[in-house]
């Protein structure tokens, strides 16, 4: 009798643990989202993208995250 109760209890606990793990996974799914997309680079005058004065093209080519105008506030989702 005792063995049957223990067996039933362990099955119940096992199922509960599996259910809890599944609910954790459900919570995790989609919770780890990548950072935000960078803002659009700004407009360009009629002289076009060539030349040092074209800030958007310079930003697009820069190796620096600041000059590239990438997101700088980590808490903006």
């Amino acid at each position, binding site marked *: 009798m005792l063995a049957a109760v223990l067996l039933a209890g362990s099955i119940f606990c096992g199922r509960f643990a599996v259910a809890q793990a599944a609910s954790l996974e459900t919570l995790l799914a989609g919770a780890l989202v990548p950072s935000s997309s*960078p803002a659009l680079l700004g407009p360009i005058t009629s002289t076009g993208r060539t030349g040092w004065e074209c800030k958007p093209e310079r930003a697009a080519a820069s190796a620096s995250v600041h000059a590239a105008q990438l997101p700088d506030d980590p808490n903006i989702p």
Partner: protein
Amino acid sequence: MRVLLLAALLVVSAEIRAAAQAYSPATPVPRTTSAPALRAYAIAREVEERFKLGLDADARGDWTAAAAEFARVAALRPPEPKGSTALYDLAIAYAHLHRYDDAARALRAALALDHEFLAAMANLIAVDLSRGDLQEARAVADRYVALDPQSARALYSRGLVALHAGDAATARDDFGKLLHTNPSYAIAHYDLALAEERLGNYDAAERELRAALELAPAYARARFALGVVLLREGHHGAARDEFSRAMADASADPALKNVAAAMRDAIKGP
């Protein structure tokens, strides 16, 4: 004496007039009577005027007016670089009007005219992410990185597209390269950690998240992600502490605060 004074005044007056005439008019006066040439002058003038009107509209946030001006410039098919530039500017106006499909079309047309227009590539990837076209975003990002492998925006954009598309290996490479030149960029540490987590490298993910939090201690998403990684590593108590702290740091992000609270509550106590 009076004659000499008069002569001097005349000389000075002539010099002033000559100096004034040195200024050229804003638009060169057409020196032709040919109808096609005059038409070409008129179109060139219209292109310049509409560019100015469109940029002025951009500056005051009147995206509808800006789109109308740049669409007209594009329809006039001016020579390069004006054609691709008008399409690029048109796409910015469309994107602000949430007309993402039109924006993508305009940027594709700009890139067809100028194959190495990096700013157009950067904006097309951002627009594609907004409209959920990960396939085109990835193709453009690959081209962008190939043209300029050092570009921070190229690496960030492709890394982001790769993370969204489930290509964690490419994301890891791109964010790793970005951090090589920008080691204090907390957001890239966070994205690199997500890639490592998806690849099952929890120790590397934990290291990157701790680096992100060292740089930005109130980075709530990094704090939350650290809780997740610690949970994966079996450190339940430490994970619960990180979720509690993420809740406190996520005051500006109610969705994250709720998920962090649910995660904290779902973990059994010691």
